[in-house]
C-alpha cells in the first residue's frame, strides 16, 4: 500500500476494524457528536470571545432576573448578566478543567499503574496500597480537602481533581499491564535482552491504551461534574468567571422566581456529562467487549 508509510497493513486493518465497530455503535457516535460540538464551542469562543452576544461579566442591575426573551435567550441572572453568554463561555472552563486534570491523572496514573503491574512484588504492593488509601476517601471529600488546604482557584481545582482520579487510572493501568506482562511477546522481548524502558514503552504501554482510553473518557465526565460541585460549594472557580457549577451556586436562591438562572447551566452540565459518558460507554463496547474495565 502506498498511501501511508507509517502504518503497516496489519495496523491498518486493526484501525479499520475499530472505526467500523465504532461507527456501528450508536451510543459512541452520539457521544462523540456532543463532545465534538462542545470542543468546537470552546475553541471558537476561546479565539473569538466576542462571538457571544454579551460580555459575560458585564452587570446590568436594572435588568436583572429577566425571563428568557429574544435579547436574552436564556434570560439574565441576579446581576443582569446574560445567562446564554455565560453558559456558552462556561464550556471552556468545564472542558479545560476536565481535560487538563484528566490528562494529568492519566500521566500519573499510567506511570504508577504500569510500573506496579510490570515490576510486581514490593513496588506493586506499596504503590497500589497507596492508591487504595486514596481511593478509600470519597472523591468529593478528598477534592474538598485538597482545595481547602491550598486555596480555591481554578488551577488548584485541577490539581485536586488530578490527584483524586489518579488511583482510578492507576488501577486500570496496572490490571492491563499485568495481563500484558504474561504475553509471549513480552517474554520474547526479555529474551532478546531489551531494556525495561523499551519493554514498558514499546510493548506494554501500547497494549494498555484501549482500557485507559475508556477509563479516561468516563472519568472526564466525573471530573467535570466534580468541578461543578466544587464551584457550587464555593471552592472552585471564583466569580465572576462563568463556571456552570458556580452559576448554579449563585442562582439556586432564585429558583422560585428565576429558574432559568439555574436550569440552563444545569442542562449544560448534564449534556456534557452525558456526552462523555456515552462516548466512554461506546468506546468500552468497542475496545473491551469482555468488560474488564472497572469504573
Amino acid at each position, binding site marked *: 500500500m502506498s498511501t501511508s508509510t507509517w502504518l503497516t497493513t496489519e495496523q491498518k486493518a486493526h484501525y479499520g476494524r475499530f472505526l467500523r465497530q465504532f461507527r456501528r455503535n450508536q451510543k459512541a457516535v452520539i457521544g462523540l457528536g456532543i463532545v465534538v460540538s462542545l470542543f468546537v464551542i470552546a475553541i471558537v469562543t476561546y479565539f473569538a470571545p466576542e462571538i457571544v452576544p454579551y460580555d459575560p461579566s458585564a452587570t446590568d442591575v436594572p435588568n436583572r432576573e429577566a425571563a428568557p426573551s429574544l435579547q436574552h435567550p436564556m434570560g439574565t441572572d441576579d446581576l443582569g448578566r446574560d445567562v446564554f453568554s455565560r453558559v456558552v463561555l462556561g464550556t471552556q472552563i468545564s472542558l479545560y478543567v476536565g481535560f487538563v486534570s484528566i490528562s494529568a491523572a492519566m500521566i500519573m496514573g499510567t506511570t504508577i499503574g504500569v510500573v506496579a503491574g510490570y515490576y510486581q512484588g514490593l513496588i506493586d504492593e506499596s504503590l497500589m496500597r497507596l492508591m487504595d488509601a486514596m481511593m478509600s476517601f470519597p472523591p468529593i471529600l478528598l477534592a474538598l480537602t485538597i482545595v481547602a488546604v491550598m*486555596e480555591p482557584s481554578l488551577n488548584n481545582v485541577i490539581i485536586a481533581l488530578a490527584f483524586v482520579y489518579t488511583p482510578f487510572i492507576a488501577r486500570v493501568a496496572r490490571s492491563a499491564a499485568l495481563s500484558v506482562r504474561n504475553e509471549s511477546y513480552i517474554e520474547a522481548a526479555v529474551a532478546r535482552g531489551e531494556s525495561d524502558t523499551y519493554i514498558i514503552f514499546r510493548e506494554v504501554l501500547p497494549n494498555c491504551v484501549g482500557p485507559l482510553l475508556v477509563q479516561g473518557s468516563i472519568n472526564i465526565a466525573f471530573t467535570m461534574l466534580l468541578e461543578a460541585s466544587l464551584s457550587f460549594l464555593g471552592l472552585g472557580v471564583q*466569580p465572576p468567571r462563568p463556571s456552570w457549577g458556580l452559576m448554579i451556586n449563585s442562582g439556586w436562591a432564585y429558583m422560585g422566581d428565576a429558574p432559568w438562572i439555574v436550569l440552563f447551566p444545569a442542562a449544560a452540565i448534564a449534556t456534557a456529562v452525558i456526552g462523555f459518558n456515552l462516548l466512554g460507554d461506546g468506546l468500552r463496547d468497542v475496545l473491551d467487549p469482555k468488560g474488564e474495565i472497572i469504573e
Partner: protein
Amino acid sequence: MATPNSSQDASLSSTKSSRRLFMKAAASGIPIAFAGCVGGDDSGNGNGNGGNGNGNGNGGNGDVSSGNGGVSDEANALLWGGSVPVQSLDPHFESAAATARVLENITQGLLRVNWDYELEPFLAESWETSDDNLEITFSLREDVVFHDGTEFTSEDVIESFRRIDEGEAIAAGYMDRVASMSTPDDYTFVMELSEPFAPMLFRLATSDMHILTAEQAQQDSIDEPIGTGPFQFESIEIDSEFVMTKFDDYWDDDLPYLDKVTKLEISDDDNRLNTFQAGELDFINDVPPRHAEDLEDDPDVDFINRFPKSLVYLGVNCNEEPFDSRDARLALEYAIDKQEVMEAALYGQGQVATSPATPGSQWEHPSLEPREQDFEKAQEHLEAAGYPDGFEATFQIPEQYNDQVTAAQVIEASAAQVGIELDIQLITWSNWLSDVYSDQNFQATTSSYLALWFPDAGFHRPLHSDGAFFFTGWEDEEYNELVEEARTLYDMEERAPLYHEAAEMLKERRSGHIMLYWTPTLMARHNGYTGEVMSPDGSTFRFEDTQLE
C-alpha cells in the same frame, strides 16, 4: 474564655486575645462546613464552627414543625426564626452579635439607648457627671431583683465591672480608663475616670458591660447568665434552638407581655422565609432584601424595616502596592458606581454611604456627598499613581455575606472598565479573620461593621491606628488626634463638628475604607403582634414590648 468557635458578626468586637483564641479554634476545625455557607446571609453565619455543619440549613432545622407543633400551640409564646445561631451566653466575653441579640433581653446595663438615640437611665435611676467630667455617680434602682431572687445592689455592679477589667473581657479597654470604683452605699455607684472619656457612657449601654450577680461575676465562664432582664434563660441547644421565658418578678410590673420566646436557628435565608410563610414561625429576622417588596405587600405580614444596621465598606491595604498610593485608591473609588452596587446587593433597601457616621445621627456630616462614578477621573488618578494601564489586585470576599459577594462582582465589572483587574477570591469567615484582618495579608476586601449608636464605633474602632478593628494600614496623625480630641468632649454639639471634619478628612485623603452602603435590618412577623422589637441602635432585639393582640 471567649467562646472561640462563635460565629461573629463582622462587627466583631473582640479583643486581641479573644480573637486569637477564635482563630485557633477555627483553624483546628477542618474547613469542610463550607457547604452551608452558600446560603449564608449578611449577618455573619461564621464557618469557624468547625465540623458542625449547621449551615446546610436543613439538618438542624428539620424539626421546626414537629418539635413545636406549629405556631399557636402555646398562647403567648413567640417562635422566632433566627439567622445566626446563639453560641455562648457570656455577656462580657462573647463577641458574636447573635449572642448580644438574646442577651439584651436577659441581662441589663446601667443605661441604655432610647429611640431618640440618647442615653436613658435603666438599672441606674439617674447619673451625674462631675464638672471635670472625671467622676460619674450612678443612683441605682432599688426595686430590682435578679433571676435567682437576689436583690440588685451596687456590689453587683462593681463585681461585674471588675470581672470585665481583670478577666480582659471585650470592654476591658474601656475599663483601663477607670481610675477607681467605689460603692458609698447599696444603691450608689461611683466611677472615677483617669481622663475625660465620652464613649464610656455609651459603652455602658451595651451587653459587653451588662450587670451580673456578684456571685456569678466571680466565675471565669458563664453558661447560664443570671440577669435582671424581663426574660430569663431557659435552655439552649447549640445550632438548634434557644429558649427564654418570662421573669415574673421583673422590676417593670407591666412587662414583658410574652411568656416565652423560642429562637429556632435557621441559617439559610430562603429556608427561614419559607418556613415563616408556611406559618410555622411567628417572627423572622434577616429577610433576604429581594423579598422585601413581596412581604411589604402581604396583608398578613407585618414587615419591619429598621435602618441602619451595619455599614459595608471596601477595604484596601494601604501598606502595600498598589493601594499604598492615594491616587490608586481614588482611581478605584471613581471606578465604582455605589448606587448600582447598593441596588445590586440590597435591591434598593439600603443607602449609599459617605462616611462612617450613622445616617441621621448628629455627627453625620450635613452636606458631604459620596464620590460619583467618573471613569475620566479614575484614569487621571491611575496615571498619577503610575499605573496608566491599570493594575491587578486580589479581592478577598467573605463568602457567607451574600450582599458582599454580589457587590464585589459589580465592583469587579466596573473596575475592569478602567483597567483595574480585581481578582475575586471567596474566602471563609475564619480565613477572613486570620488572613485579612489579623495578618493584613490582602490587597482589597469587603467587610462590614454594626452601625451602633455612638460615634466611636465608626470613627475610632476601624479607622484610628489604635482602634480595635484597625487593619487597613491607613495611618494619619491629624485624623488620629482629631478623633482622640472628640472622645474627651461630652457635649454632642461640641463634639459633632470634629466628626464632620474627620469625615471630610477620610474622604479627601481617601482612607483605607471606601464606604459602600448602609444595610437595614429586615424582619417580618405575622399580623397580630405589636410592639417594637428592634433596639434603637439596630444591633439587638428587645422582646419586652412585643405582644399578641
